[in-house]
């Protein structure tokens, strides 16, 4: 399994964590983004559909991981993002970060998911229980998952 991937297959957080777990890094933080039942505006969500420019998205994940190591010290990072149709409760994204210590691991994981949401060429179409659907853009600097 590659460390950086865009995939139509269900994400296995434990398998992605295993990609970064090793004897050199004592702190591991994993962020998982899960499909919520309610949109930010309160509407009932039926599901999400993700689309990506996969080649560019994977290159962006690699760049984000390099930047994280430059900022927070040696980190081992894996980033996987789903595409296709996802139901409520499914995992849309997993960012697993292992660093020497917990502080850098938390900081690098937060940096990586924020950078992904801002920069990675991935798009989300939210479908609602009332039958409507909308493309949803990420607001820059927002901390919502």
């Amino acid at each position, binding site marked *: 399994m590659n460390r950086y991937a865009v995939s139509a297959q269900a994400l296995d957080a434990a398998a992605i964590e295993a990609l970064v777990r090793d004897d050199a890094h004592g702190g591991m933080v994993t962020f998982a983004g899960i499909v919520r039942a309610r949109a930010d505006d309160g509407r009932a969500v039926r599901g999400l559909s993700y689309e*990506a420019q996969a080649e560019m998205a994977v290159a962006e994940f690699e760049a984000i991981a390099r930047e994280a190591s430059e900022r927070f010290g040696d980190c081992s990072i894996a980033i996987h993002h789903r595409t296709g149709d996802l139901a409520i409760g499914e995992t849309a994204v997993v960012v697993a970060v292992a660093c020497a210590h917990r502080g850098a691991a938390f900081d690098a994981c937060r940096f990586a998911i924020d950078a992904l949401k801002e920069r990675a*060429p991935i798009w989300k179409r939210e479908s609602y229980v009332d039958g409507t659907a909308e493309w949803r853009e990420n607001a820059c600097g927002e901390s919502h998952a």
Partner: protein
Amino acid sequence: MRVSVVAFARLRELLGFSQRSLVLPEAASVDDAWSAIAAEAPAIRELRGSTRIACNGAVVDGVRRLRDGDELSLLPPAGGG
């Protein structure tokens, strides 16, 4: 010259294609390509400012000159995560 244009997400829906080829004059720029596409699709005219355009996988400025065979990706604002 002939370039390939790939549209994603909202832009794909507004344009009605995911990929097409586009014939442009020699030395045309990325912005010239956008203008040619927008001329046929008024719904996207206001979206240039929010759209990143990649040439062969790398995001480029509008003034970038195109070459025959280039592939342009039209990238709406990100929505991943």
